[in-house]
């Protein structure tokens, strides 16, 4: 399973991720920073999520694989 890992201290709320893949990313109403809507990315959205990750101007996002070996990249 693909998961998204957020470094909240880097996120500045550009919302590029939400624009590119609103199924997985949203922007909260407290600080205007990213929140992950779905922890586990459905296979059909993996490409969109990768694109969102690469477009984050702060480098605040990355993806990881988790399955039987929890947390393995």
């Amino acid at each position, binding site marked *: 399973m693909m998961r998204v890992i957020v470094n909240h201290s880097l996120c500045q*709320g550009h919302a590029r991720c939400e624009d590119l893949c609103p199924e997985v990313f949203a922007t909260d109403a*407290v600080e205007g920073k990213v929140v992950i809507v779905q922890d586990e990315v459905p296979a059909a959205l993996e490409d969109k999520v990768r694109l969102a990750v690469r477009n984050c101007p702060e480098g605040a996002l990355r993806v990881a694989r988790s399955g039987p070996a929890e947390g393995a990249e």
Partner: protein
Amino acid sequence: MTLMFQPSPPDHVPADRMVDFDMFHIPDGVSDPAEIWHDLVRRGVPDIFYTPHNGGHWVFLRYEDIVDAYRDHTVFSTYQTPVPPIEPFPVVQPQGVDPPAHNVFRRLLAPMFTPTAVRGMMDELERRAAELIEGFAARGECDFITEFAERYPTGTFLYLFGLPEERLDEFLALANTFFRSTDPAARARNIGEIYAVLDQLFREKERNPSNDIATQIVMARDENGAQHSWEDILNCGFLLFVAGLDTVTNTMAYIWRYLATTPAAQKHFRDRLDDPDGFLRGIEELMRINAVSNLFRRVTHDCEYRGVQFRRNDRVVLPNTVANRDPRVFKAPQVIDLDRKVNVHLTFGVGPHRCIGSVLAKREVMVSLQQWLRRIPEFSLADEQPAGSVFGGSVMGFTALRLRWEVAARQAAA
């Protein structure tokens, strides 16, 4: 008054990093002020150089260095930064304040401009764009800057601040003096007028709270349950007034000029009127190519960065337009690729001060172009262009853009 933030003479600058460059001077015949910046790269000047013009300042040309400067407020501060140096300079909230104090107004404003918040503004943004365009569509021509690019963001400000439409001309006049006047006395008077208008507005909103951003700012409470200082409230209103007008106006001017001379790009967007993701991808690329802002920073203490000596109070200028064409970051940076997939442009800055209004600004441009193309599917530059001026500085742009189109084509499309 003791001046505390004046740069020292540049005797710490090595001769090979000295370049004769005036960011406010656009030579005759240059129609795109960003070209004076791209020219530096073509000439191969050092990536980090110093110019004695405008009080003396550094310029960073590499994407990576510009990002470092945006991110590290402990060296590159936004407090008291103007180029040329003016003191004291109004401390706008939150742009003129370094973290962590910066976070107070940042946290207050950021939630008001998230995609969800901006979605709630969309009907009004669309209605306003359509109304302005309908005002001239049947005429077959318009003066794009005065009839649209200035009026639209100023109208958006009125809407966000809960001000009546009747005040549009008053606010346009205030903004025009602020952005275009070169007379110091007129400018000082103008800033006083803007603050007076904001003072009256916030007092009115305090008495009669309504559902707008001005009310949210004046009614906000700090961690001790107290209202923010009145000075900070005014400084925040002032920033929101100046941050979202000239930037949007000139971004639109650049974009419409490019489209008017590039029929294939008009078609690209026409073909995507029902594909918001594809449309936005194209807007994002136009944002990369037309980055109108050059930002200022002030060095906080004597230090070394990338082997270069900096002195306290040295000014640093960050040209986003150069960062956005750095070949180390962008594939084929000179190509305008309206389908560019990875586009980490710095048009809205990066780091703690990155533009709070970036989502709104992009939606303003997107909605305007959608409404425009639905009514004016094809357009070009008019043969006669009015006399105007081209200006550089912290926001770059130009003041004349006359467009024309076939009215028959429009009726056929309707």
